């Protein structure tokens, strides 16, 4: 077993880290506090290829394997988890269904639009269907060579900024998961409105909105896979993207450690740096353990995907649940290491604590991941 990264992975990690440290981290707290959408930063990311990390080389993307995509996601989230969310929601989450089931013509069109700088958004969650994704009620009805979409989607990352939506809808709720269909929908189709923009605890640089579909006519050629395959496509997408979320959480967990380590060496109390106190040292050690374990779990889940094994749900859920908790715990401990200063906006750790919480919620809560893991264990 060789834990080393390849030469390209190393270079990609270094470049993404440099970018994050120079172009994101120094501005992230201003963006967060003043609710600024970091368009200039995203433009730079578009130029360098970040906004198309999920697109294969033959369709004009950088052609990264899953391990490398997720290493990049970790490094961007080290700088700001909101910017990471914009990138991942578009170029991985909304794009993965195209990998999973799109035909050649669809790949050319939708990958092409991502490469050209359009943002994607993944529309699964609804007001009445969160953890219970199979409970969605957005309807699709076939009329001629079009499908008519009706329904509303909740908490959609890039909902108000995307040019294209990846949407899960049902032909008939009574058909259960067998009635579900996955569509690619152009934002400018009549009948689409962007609803409420969420005012969030954290990842405030990312845009989260309601997206409402009223008699939206989608050409039948935009159906990904076949009628009835939608649920399978979305579940497979989530298996893939959960490793990405684990990577993002790892980035935040690492940032918490880096900030705490630096601060603990500078802050003196009782005539000594606080890093000389064992209580602080143990916090740092625990943080480092959680970072490393998270990273290895997402490396494993991502590399299973690269090896094209048929099932990696459990590995992805192990990584996602663990790394989500690790980011949250590390953030709480980072605030503790900073003491009263950590509780103020002058220092970066209160934001990390607000940002970290999302990793225990979106893309399947920590509880839902545990259901997947336990289900797998009990199936034997």
């Amino acid at each position, binding site marked *: 077993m060789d834990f080393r990264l390849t*030469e*390209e992975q190393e*270079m*990609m990690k270094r*470049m993404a880290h*440099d*970018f994050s440290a120079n172009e994101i981290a120094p501005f992230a707290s201003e963006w967060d506090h003043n609710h600024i959408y970091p368009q200039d930063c995203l433009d730079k990311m578009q*130029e*360098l*290829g*970040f906004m198309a*990390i999920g697109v294969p*080389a033959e369709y004009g993307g*950088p*052609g*990264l394997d899953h391990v490398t995509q997720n290493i990049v996601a970790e490094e961007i989230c080290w700088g700001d988890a909101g910017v990471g969310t914009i990138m991942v929601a578009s170029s991985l989450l909304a794009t993965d269904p195209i990998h999973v089931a799109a035909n050649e013509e669809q790949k050319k069109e939708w990958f092409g639009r991502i490469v050209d700088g359009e943002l994607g958004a993944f529309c699964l969650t609804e007001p009445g269907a969160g953890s219970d994704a199979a409970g969605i009620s957005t309807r699709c009805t076939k009329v001629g060579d079009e499908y008519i979409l009706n329904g509303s989607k909740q908490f959609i990352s890039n909902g108000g900024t995307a040019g294209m939506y990846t949407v899960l809808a049902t032909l008939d709720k009574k058909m259960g998961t067998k009635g579900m269909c996955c569509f690619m929908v152009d934002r400018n189709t009549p009948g689409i409105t962007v609803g409420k923009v969420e005012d969030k605890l954290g990842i405030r640089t990312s845009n989260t909105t309601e997206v409402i579909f009223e008699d939206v006519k989608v050409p039948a050629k935009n159906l990904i896979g076949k009628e009835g395959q939608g649920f399978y496509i979305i579940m497979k997408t989530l298996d893939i993207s959960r490793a990405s979320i684990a990577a993002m959480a790892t980035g935040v967990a690492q940032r918490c450690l880096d900030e705490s380590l630096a601060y603990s060496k500078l802050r003196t109390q009782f005539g000594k740096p606080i890093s000389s106190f064992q209580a602080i040292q143990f916090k740092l050690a625990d943080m480092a353990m959680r970072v490393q374990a998270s990273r290895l779990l997402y490396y494993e889940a991502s590399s299973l995907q690269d090896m094209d094994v048929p099932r990696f749900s459990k590995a992805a859920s192990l990584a996602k649940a663990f790394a989500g908790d690790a980011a949250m715990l590390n953030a709480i401990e980072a605030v503790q290491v900073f003491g009263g200063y950590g509780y103020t906006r002058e220092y970066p750790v209160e934001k990390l604590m607000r940002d970290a919480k999302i990793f225990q919620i979106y893309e399947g809560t920590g509880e839902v991941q545990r259901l997947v893991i336990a289900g797998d264990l009990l199936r034997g």
Partner: protein
Amino acid sequence: MKVLVCVKQTFDTEAKIELKDGKISDAGINLIINPYDEVAVEGGIQLKEKGIAKEVVVVSAGSDKAMDAIRTALAMGADRGILVKQDTAADEYARACALAEVIKGESPDIVLAGHVAADDGSSQVPTRIAEILGFPHVNVITAVEIAGGKATCTSEADGGTQVTEVSLPAVISSQVSWNEPRYPSMKGIMAAKKKPVSTVDAAAVANKVAIVSVALPPSKQAGIKIEDEPAVVGAKLADWMLNTVKVEVK
């Protein structure tokens, strides 16, 4: 037109320098492309983008680790690389001889380099290369125009700028303010592996300098704190400077 850029793999500028057995230890040190050379690489790539240069070749002398610096330059957009394998203990003279030998074989129109390396800061290699090859040399440039077989270089001079015109081939070394080096793009990184890099052994040249010993600078002494009315602070500070630090007043 062919541009050749000399790059060096150096210690990360934030690295903590430690001595081991009387030598600078590179254990656990992050190595990066010399930031000054990165500016030269960017300058070379821009000449290509402007249609002035056809090919940008990067050359690095050092151990296998120098391959990293070459790959970084290739990822930024250089076309091919040459690794000149040489003992890391080579001095500036031996270094310049090895590089000059390779440059002679390549016969570039312009040789670019950073004006100094972030590690030993000796600022000698580009000047020595120019001397060995009999090329004109312009140092610390902040801008360059190439036309009609000539390079018009703007460089820093005491209290102003100086414009120098030289005929090509020439050695031009950059000041950091010449440009803002780009991040290698993802496609650039993926393409770098497929770009050709050749490896040659350095010409056997003996060092001219023997290092007798290496020492770290003395650690910083604690300062003093003067707390009082502004006028009193001024007087006490002046007294401290004159009588304790013994600043010479001319």
